[in-house]
C-alpha cells in the first residue's frame, strides 16, 4: 500500500483509540470521585498525569484548578489545542479518515463522521451538561462500534493492519500510563483503608476496561500487585501491555516477514522483539525491579518503536514531524 496512506491508517487507529481511552478514564474517574472518599485532587490530578497534560493544563492558568473535576474534564473533553482531548482526537481521527476515504469502509466512515458532527453540535453539549455519563458512553460506543466495523467490513489486508497496529500501540501506551500513574499514586496512600484501597484498584481496572476480566482470573482477590501484573502480563486480556505489544508484533512481522530482504521494517521487528522479551512476568521478580521502573522502560520502548516504524514505513521526514505525539 501507499506509504502516505499507511501513515494515515496508523494515526487513524491511534486517534480513535485515544478518544475512547480519554472518555473511559474520565468516566471512571467521575464515578470514583463520587464514592471513594478521596479528596478531589487525588482523583483528578492523576488524570492529567496519565495524559501527560499537566503542563499544558497549568499553562491555561489553571494549576490551582487541578482539584476541580469540572475544569479538568472541560480541558480533557473540549480543548481543541489539547491533543489528548476527546474533541481534538475525534477531529483528528475524522480528518485522517477523510483523507483516506477510499480506504476506510463506508460504515466505519459514517460512524466517525457522525461522532464528529455530534461533538460539534448542540446535542453533545446538552448531553455533557445534563447527563455526563451518557455523554462519555456515546463517545465510547461510537468508537467501539467503529473499531468493530473496521474488522467486520474491511479487507483484512495491509491498510487494516496499519490501522490496528496504531490502535494496539496507542492502547499499550495508555494502559502503561494509566497503570504507572495510579499504581504510584495509590501506593503512596496511607494504608489501613482496606475498603478505600480496594475500590481504588477496582477503579484502575475499570479505567482499563479490565474489571470483569480481572475478577474472572482472580476470583475476588484484589491486591495492588495482582492488578499491576494483570495489566502488564495477562496473555488473554486485550488491553494488557503484553497482549497489545504481542499483537502489534504479529502485524509488524506481516509487514516484514522473517528472511525477507529489501523490504522496510527490519529494525521495527527487531525492536519489537526486544521489547517483548523485556516484558516477561519474571521481569518483576528480578532484584530491585519495580512496577514503575518496568513501566518507564516500556513506555520509552513503545515510543521508540513508533518512531522507528514511522521512519521505516512512512518516510522519516514526514512521519516524525507531521503528527503531534501526545506521549
Amino acid at each position, binding site marked *: 500500500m501507499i506509504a502516505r*496512506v499507511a501513515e494515515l491508517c496508523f494515526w487513524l487507529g491511534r486517534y480513535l483509540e485515544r478518544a475512547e481511552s480519554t472518555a473511559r478514564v474520565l468516566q471512571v474517574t467521575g464515578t470514583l470521585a463520587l464514592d471513594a472518599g478521596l479528596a478531589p485532587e487525588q482523583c483528578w490530578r492523576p488524570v492529567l498525569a496519565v495524559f501527560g497534560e499537566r503542563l499544558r493544563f497549568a499553562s491555561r492558568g489553571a494549576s490551582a484548578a487541578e482539584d476541580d473535576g469540572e475544569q479538568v474534564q472541560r480541558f480533557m473533553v473540549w480543548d481543541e489545542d489539547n491533543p489528548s482531548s476527546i474533541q481534538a482526537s475525534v477531529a483528528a481521527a475524522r480528518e485522517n479518515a477523510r483523507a483516506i476515504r477510499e480506504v476506510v469502509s463506508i460504515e466505519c466512515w459514517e460512524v466517525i*463522521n457522525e461522532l464528529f458532527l455530534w461533538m460539534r453540535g448542540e446535542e453533545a453539549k446538552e448531553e455533557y451538561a445534563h447527563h455526563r455519563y451518557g455523554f462519555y458512553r456515546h463517545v465510547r460506543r461510537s468508537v467501539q462500534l467503529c473499531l468493530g466495523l473496521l474488522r467486520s467490513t474491511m479487507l483484512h489486508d495491509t491498510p487494516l493492519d496499519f490501522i490496528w497496529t496504531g490502535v494496539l500501540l496507542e492502547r499499550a501506551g495508555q494502559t502503561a500510563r494509566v497503570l504507572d500513574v495510579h499504581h504510584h499514586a495509590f501506593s503512596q496512600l496511607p494504608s489501613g483503608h482496606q475498603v478505600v484501597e480496594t475500590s481504588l484498584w477496582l477503579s484502575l481496572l475499570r479505567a482499563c476496561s479490565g474489571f470483569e476480566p480481572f475478577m474472572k482470573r482472580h476470583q475476588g482477590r484484589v491486591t495492588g500487585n495482582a492488578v499491576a501484573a494483570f495489566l502488564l502480563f495477562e496473555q488473554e486480556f486485550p488491553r494488557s501491555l503484553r497482549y497489545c505489544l504481542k499483537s502489534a508484533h504479529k502485524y509488524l512481522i506481516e509487514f516484514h516477514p522473517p528472511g525477507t530482504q529489501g523490504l522496510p521494517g527490519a529494525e521495527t521487528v527487531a525492536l519489537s522483539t526486544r521489547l517483548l522479551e523485556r516484558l516477561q512476568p519474571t521481569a518483576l521478580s528480578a532484584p530491585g525491579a519495580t512496577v514503575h521502573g518496568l513501566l518507564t522502560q516500556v513506555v520509552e520502548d513503545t515510543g521508540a518503536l513508533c518512531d522507528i516504524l514511522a521512519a521505516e514505513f512512512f518516510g522519516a521526514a514526514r512521519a516524525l514531524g507531521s503528527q503531534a505525539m501526545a506521549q
Partner: protein
Amino acid sequence: MRRMLVPGLFDDYAVAPGTFDELFEASGTARSHFLRMFAMLAGRSAEEFARIQALAERALLNQGVTFSVYSDSRGTEKIFPFCLIPRIVSSVDWMRLERGLEQRTRALGLFLDDVYGPQRMLAERPELRDIVLGTKLYLPQLRHVRPPGGVRIHVAGIDLIRDERGTFRVLEDNLRTPSGVSYVMENRIISKRVMPEIFEQARIRQVDHYPARLAETLRAVSPEDPEHSTLVVLTPGPYNSAYFEHSFLARTMGVELVQPADLFVERDQVFVRTTRGPRRVHVIYRRIDDAFLDPEAFRPDSLLGVRGLMRAYAAGNVALANAPGNGVADDKAVYAFVPEMIRFYLSEEPLLEQVPTYVCARRQERDYVVDHLEQLVVKAVDEAGGYGMLMGPQSTPEAREEFRARILAEPRKYVAQPRVELSTCPTWDAGKGRVAPRRVDLRPYILTGPQGPWVLPGGLSRVALREGSYVVNSSQGGGSKDTWVQREVA
C-alpha cells in the same frame, strides 16, 4: 390529469412565463412522461416533503458528501445543496441527446488529434489557427505525442441547457477534469432511500455502474496488458474542493487515490511509493490541472506535480486521463467552431444545437458585441465557474462600459452569446416552504475508450436555487438534482 384536482405539493406551482418547464406544460398540466410519478409526488403535502428533504440532507451530511469551503479557515465542509424533486428526461429526448453527445465527443477527439498532429483543419481555416494556437490551453510541447490507446477525451462532461422552446443546446464542453459525477450517484442513492415508492413508479435507468465502466475505459488505454495494469486516481489532496469526488472515484473503482508526492518517475516510468517499495503505475486518472502535473514540463516554480511525468507520458509508458492539452478544444472561443468540426471530420450535420456565439477576435462580431452589450452575455474565455462574466440584460451602464473597454483592449479574451432563457424545474424552496420554478442545466458524462464513446444515462442537473438567478455553479450558490432518464417503454 388536471393539476387542480390533485391536492398537495404542486398546488401553488405556476410555470414562469416565457420559459420551458421540465415537468409541466405551460398550461399547468404535468408533461406526459412525468404523469406516472406525478400523482405520488403531488400527493404529498409540503410538510411531508420538507420532512423527507431534511432527511436527505441529514444523510448527505452524515455520509460526508460535501465539498470544502475554501474561505473558512476551520476547514468547514458543506453539502452540495440538493433538491429531491428530480429532473426527468424522457427516453425519446435522451436517445436524441445520446447520439448528439457521442457525435460531438467524437468530433472533438478528432479535432484534438488534428491540432496535436497534422493540423489539417487549421491549415484550411487561418482564423481558427490564430484562435487555437493563441490560447495558453494549447500545449505546443505535446505536438506529435500520441496518447496511449489513442484516446484523449476519456471523460467528458458536456453542459447542456434547454431554451424557451425546449430545445437542448450545448453550453460548454468540459474536456479537462469535469467533476460532479459522484453527486449524480450519491443523489441517486439518497433518492432511492427516502422515496422508494416514487422511484419505483418512475422506471429509471441506472447510473451506479459508472465507476465500473470508468475503470474499464481507463484500463483499456493502458500501455501494458489491462489485466495486469495499475490504475490510480491522482488528487491534489484533501484540501481541494472536489476531494470528496476524487476519493469517491478511487473508492468505487477499488483503486488507490494518490497525491503527487506518492509518485515518482524513473527511466521514464511512473512508480508509486508503497510500504513494500516502488510499484509501477500504468494509468493515471488525474484530477489535477495540466499546469500542475509536472514542474519539469510546465511550471518550474511549482512544488506540486510529479517531476518527469510528461517524459513518461511522451514515451508512451503511462496513460493520462484526460490527455494533457485538451483545454484547447473546450476553450470558449473554439466552442464556436464545433459544428464546423463535426462537418469537417465526420462529414455529418451536428445533431445537437449550441448557443450562437460571437467571437470577439473577429472584427465584425466584436463590433456587434460592443454595440449590443445590454442584450448579450459576455464571457472571458479563460475563466470558469461563472467568473469573469457580464450578464448584459441585468447589468449597470458602468459595468457595460468596463466590459466594453476590456473587450476592445483584449478581444481574444472574450466571447458573447445572446442570453438563453434556461428551462426551469420545480424545486423546493426551503425558505418559503413550497415548490417554485428554478432554472436548471444538465451535465451528462461521456466515457470514451478505444471502442468509442458511451453516455451515462443520467447526469448532474444543476439548479439555480435563488429566485430569478441564472447561476447554477456550486461555487456561486447553485445546487443539484437527480436526473431521471426514463426507460424505453417496451
